């Protein structure tokens, strides 16, 4: 099985008088169809690692290969294209575009990619939202949705271009237990039914326990990496 994501000695430090290390020498190999929990105490660098893997940030040292392509020497444009097609990102906070409806928020990445017709995009956005229990809210704007609903729209948006990799930063962090369970079920389905690779940061021990692999971070380093 070939590696989907290959991180070698990834390090990210912030330049300062006393440089702050966010991530220190992280090496990971992530394969397709893995369902991975990233855990660790607050401030351990979980989000920072996800930003690096999601090509939102650049490592100060180390190499990152995604789907066999070294990302280091890529231009900004190439990285953007890779993000668009390969990576779905769910933030801790929903980060929807406030002026656009739920459907439009989901359609925007599809339209940028431009692989589908207008009608297909519309249908797919509707299906995605419906599958996330948002069938009745497609034409609402983020401000008209609850926190849990917004987070689900954000997940739908992350899945819009059917990316092989989904990175989620505490996707259930701001949700009640019912919504959390719902979101977890969605992520789980994505791996089990759709064959995606999901990497999710979580503080929820039970949730982590139900995932295939747990990567634990402390002070920016991987201290344990265990498979179920």
């Amino acid at each position, binding site marked *: 099985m070939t590696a989907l994501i290959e991180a070698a000695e990834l390090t990210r430090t912030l330049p300062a008088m006393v440089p702050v290390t966010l991530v220190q020498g992280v090496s990971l190999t992530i394969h397709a169809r893995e369902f991975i929990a990233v855990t660790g105490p607050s401030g351990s660098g979980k989000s920072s690692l996800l930003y690096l893997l999601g090509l939102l940030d650049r490592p100060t040292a180390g190499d990152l290969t995604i789907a066999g392509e070294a990302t280091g020497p890529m231009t900004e444009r190439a990285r953007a*294209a890779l993000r668009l097609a390969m990576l779905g990102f769910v933030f801790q906070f929903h980060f929807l575009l406030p002026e656009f409806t739920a459907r439009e928020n989901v359609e925007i990445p599809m339209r*940028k990619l431009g692989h589908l017709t207008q009608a297909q995009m519309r249908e797919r956005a509707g299906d995605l939202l419906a599958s996330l229990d948002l069938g009745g809210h497609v034409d609402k704007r983020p401000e008209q949705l609850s926190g849990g609903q917004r987070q689900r729209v954000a997940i739908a948006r992350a899945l819009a271009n059917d990316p092989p990799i989904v990175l989620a930063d505490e996707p259930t962090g701001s949700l009640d237990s019912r919504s959390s369970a719902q979101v977890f079920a969605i992520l789980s389905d994505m791996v089990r039914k759709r064959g995606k690779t999901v990497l999710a940061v979580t503080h929820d021990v039970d949730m982590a326990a139900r995932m295939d692999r747990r990567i634990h971070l402390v002070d920016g380093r991987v201290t344990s990496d265990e498979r179920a």
Partner: protein
Amino acid sequence: MRLVLEMAVTHIVGRGPQTLVAIVGVALGVGFSIAMAALMQGTQDNFVAQLVDTVPHVQVVDQKRVPPRQPAQDAFAAVQIAGLRPREDRRGILNPTAALASLKGWLPGRMAPSLKTQGVIRFAGRDVGAAIIGVDPRAEAGVSSLAKDFRMGSFASLAAGGSNIVVGDRMAERLGATLGTNVSVVSGTGLTRPFKIVGLFHTGVTARDESEAYVLLKSAQILSERPNTINEIRLRLDNPDNARLVAARVEALLGTKAVSWQEANESLLEALIIQNVVMYTVVGAIMLVAGFGIFNVISTITHEKARDIAILKSLGFPEGDMRRLFLIEGLTLGFAGSLVGWSLGYALCFALSQVHFEVSSVGREMTRLPLAWSFLHYVIAAAFALLAAGVAGYLPARRAARANPVDIIRGAT
């Protein structure tokens, strides 16, 4: 590209109040720039227009630019002759009929011959010095701006039989005379003739209203004992800008001095150049201030969108899209604001044009604010607004797009 365009539209429409503020901001800048430019330019144009209107476009006088060659110069082979009393031969434009006929064929405008002489108008024991100007009423009406300044009577009244005269209203006041009064005119040569006042004019220029008196050309020739003589031809051209050319041609043709209005008012026109510089500086400064306001409003909006830029970037939009998105938004707001600003500017100009003044203590009365209705002002103001708006959209977007989205995402949670 279509996606970017649609997103720009959604942004603009979706943020109603902000969009409104931006459009109003641009509109105010554009509107006031237009109004100020119209006022400044109008003042300038009005000044020149009044000048061109009141003075003859070309004035042919019975002088030579170079003093005539004196017999002494022919008699003695001297290098230079000074202190010579020249032969007295200022007798006016000789053979006026031929002179006028030679102009008639080609002159792009109208002309009026006149004989100007000094005299005194006498009534009820009061003497008032006057410039007695003998004119051909019909020709004069076509040339002189005075024709529309008559309070009572007109040039035509001069020809209504008998010895008639028209004077300025201030002159009449000083004499204690009025329309229909019979006054005596004493010429420089000592002749006295009775005249009846058949017209009163009021130019607003005190010096003229006080001291000009018009009679028939024939009467002036009799008074000054210079039969069949004129000493001035005044031309009114269809296009006053040609005055210099026409003057040169007339001078070559008649041999007497022909002065264009530009030449006659050279120092004034020079002062006008300085005024022009001041005007452009002021209008430029107003536009700069307006442009800065526009920049401020739109760049604030763009700044507020930094988070959206980070989100779009995280979704896989390249930086160029973000720059384009906000450039389009800036330009759209600038364009919409310019359109509203045009109406505002037009309305302001209209309002200003309705303002009336009564200023009669100064020589000339200005009853309305002079405004220049120039489409160029609108174009320039809008171009400036578009530039400011475009830059205001582009620059902050470029910065936000270049920034690490993680910094913005971290900052926003």
